[in-house]
């Protein structure tokens, strides 16, 4: 399989600006400056079927076409590098190994949307990737690749690198905007959408690190080529973060639509200790779980949605036959209880109740009504809040007890797991 972004993932190496240029870097932005205007660039990205790879999967070119250019206000580009969906670690690889690919992608997106200032919001825990990114931005300024009148073409762009401070909710785009404005990361009610009223009340394009990093490839090799790599309406490749009970956890760059089975068994080496597969989270912690017999699904936004789960951030978490699903759900729901911003009651209270009920079940104090109560709480958490955190929490909360009902009932009835614990999974 040809590698695009991941060809730069050389262990221990960060490509400097000169090394990146020697490898053909910053050619795409020159092509853009010389041959394209904003409209034709947006058209190209639409044709490439590039989807939003942060998790929502919204077609990138269409998102750009929503940005009003006649408001008299500046348009901002905000880069979401607040990689926080558990099971996802791909953006860290891009920023650590090839930050200039991201910078070139930012330049292309900025040109398309008439943006002259971009903010990169990187999660606060990514200390070393942050340092690599700041160094790369400085290199680009020193070489005249950022700043005023880039390459003498009359286009100017500034990039500000901004650190988050440890809050999952700031990965949600409007929570991120609040945080970038110096506030608590509490998501905003939509509409208005950030494309129209975003950062500092101005039109704002928000794209994920990986989405932007594919733009140079699309310019260099063509939208049709990119679209043809993936599946229907899901262009190109993406970086799958694979973790859990596989032999070879890591980042795998594969075409959209590739069967989940192939990711697990061909690329990630199959299940550790040659055990049997039990379950997989296909798209980050907030995706509904799939059973072992459901892995012949194509990994793109539409095929996974048809299976009532989601492609999300492409964080694939694999669980073997010795995994206790009650404890896995407890660990999952503890995360949401910790990360709820507290703004909406169904989420603030719901995630806490669910966490406490699961903790009681896992410590042997389950009651016969617990599953019914969990199901009730789940139904009022979905679709009742400002942002999607509660919806994300509801996906595992609904799917685990549905698909592993027997295990939950056993735990409640007997006060212990029906799974003989190998490597223990507990909270």
């Amino acid at each position, binding site marked *: 399989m040809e590698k695009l972004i991941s060809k730069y993932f050389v262990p221990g190496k960060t490509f400097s600006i000169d090394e990146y240029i020697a490898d053909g870097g910053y050619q795409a932005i020159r092509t853009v400056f010389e041959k394209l205007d904003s409209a034709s660039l947006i058209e190209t990205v639409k044709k490439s079927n590039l989807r939003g790879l942060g998790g929502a999967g919204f077609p990138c070119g269409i998102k750009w076409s929503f940005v009003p250019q006649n408001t008299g206000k500046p348009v901002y580009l905000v880069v979401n590098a607040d990689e926080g969906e*558990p099971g996802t670690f791909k953006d860290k690889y891009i920023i650590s190994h090839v930050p200039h690919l991201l910078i070139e992608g930012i330049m292309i997106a900025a040109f398309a949307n008439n943006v002259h200032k971009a903010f990169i919001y990187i999660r606060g825990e990514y200390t070393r990737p942050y340092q690599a990114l700041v160094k790369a931005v400085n290199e680009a300024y020193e070489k005249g690749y950022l700043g005023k009148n880039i390459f003498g073409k009359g286009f100017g762009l500034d990039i*500000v690198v901004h650190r988050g*401070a440890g809050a999952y909710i700031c990965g949600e785009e409007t929570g991120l905007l609040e945080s970038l404005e*110096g506030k608590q990361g509490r998501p905003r009610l939509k509409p208005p959408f950030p494309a129209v009223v975003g950062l500092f009340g101005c039109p704002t394009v928000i794209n994920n690190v990986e989405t932007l990093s594919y733009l140079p490839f699309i310019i260099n090799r063509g939208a049709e080529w990119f679209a043809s790599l993936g599946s229907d309406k899901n262009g190109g490749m993406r970086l799958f973060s694979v*973790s*859990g009970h596989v032999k070879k*956890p890591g980042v795998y760059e594969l075409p959209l639509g590739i069967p989940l089975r192939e990711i697990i068994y061909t690329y990630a080496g199959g299940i550790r200790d040659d055990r049997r597969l039990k379950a997989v989270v296909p798209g980050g912690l907030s995706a509904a779980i799939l059973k072992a017999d459901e892995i012949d699904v194509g990994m793109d936004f539409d095929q996974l949605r048809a299976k009532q789960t989601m492609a999300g951030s492409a964080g694939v978490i694999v669980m073997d036959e010795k995994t206790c699903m009650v404890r896995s759900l407890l660990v999952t729901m*503890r*995360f949401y209880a910790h990360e709820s911003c507290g703004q909406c009651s169904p989420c603030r209270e719901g995630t806490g109740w669910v966490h406490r009920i699961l903790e009681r079940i896992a410590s042997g104090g389950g009651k016969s009504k617990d599953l019914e109560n969990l199901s009730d709480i789940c139904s009022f958490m979905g679709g009742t809040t400002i942002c999607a955190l509660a919806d994300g929490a509801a996906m595992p909360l609904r799917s685990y007890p549905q698909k592993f009902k027997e295990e939950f009932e056993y735990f409640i009835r007997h006060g212990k797991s029906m799974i003989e614990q190998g*490597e223990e999974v507990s909270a």
Partner: protein
Amino acid sequence: MNIFTEQFKKQADEVVARYETKRASLLEILHLVMETYGYVSVEAEEAVADYLKLPPMDVHEVVTFYTLYYRQPKAKTRFNVCRTLSCSLAGSDRLIKHFEEKLGIKAGQKSADGKCGLQAVECLGACEMAPMLQVNDDEYVGGLTKERIDELIKKYMTS
């Protein structure tokens, strides 16, 4: 203590200049406080509020919302062990217990002499290294075992 020393103010001014509004610089200014003083005291909150012309409450609510702003002096060596799903599947719970026994403190605590702190934290975005931890808000260490933890404690606690 004067938080805004001449040098600190110079650095802070540079941060503020990057943003459209003074307030937008708040998170980065607080990072600067962390880097310079090791934690954000109430006194520092008030000084930052004064500097950015914000009500002290606006600064306080931001400090308390985010996990990376410490409100007490940090322990000298800090182990933040991930406990979210991929790390949990790889046995992080057992490893956190091992840490607690070896350091004589519970997760969430700091030793009485301030030499070490232990926290169980949510996903750090390094599930391929599971089970993993972050030392001193900087280096990621993966593939943890009890033996590896003993080595880490020795390495960081005696240096």
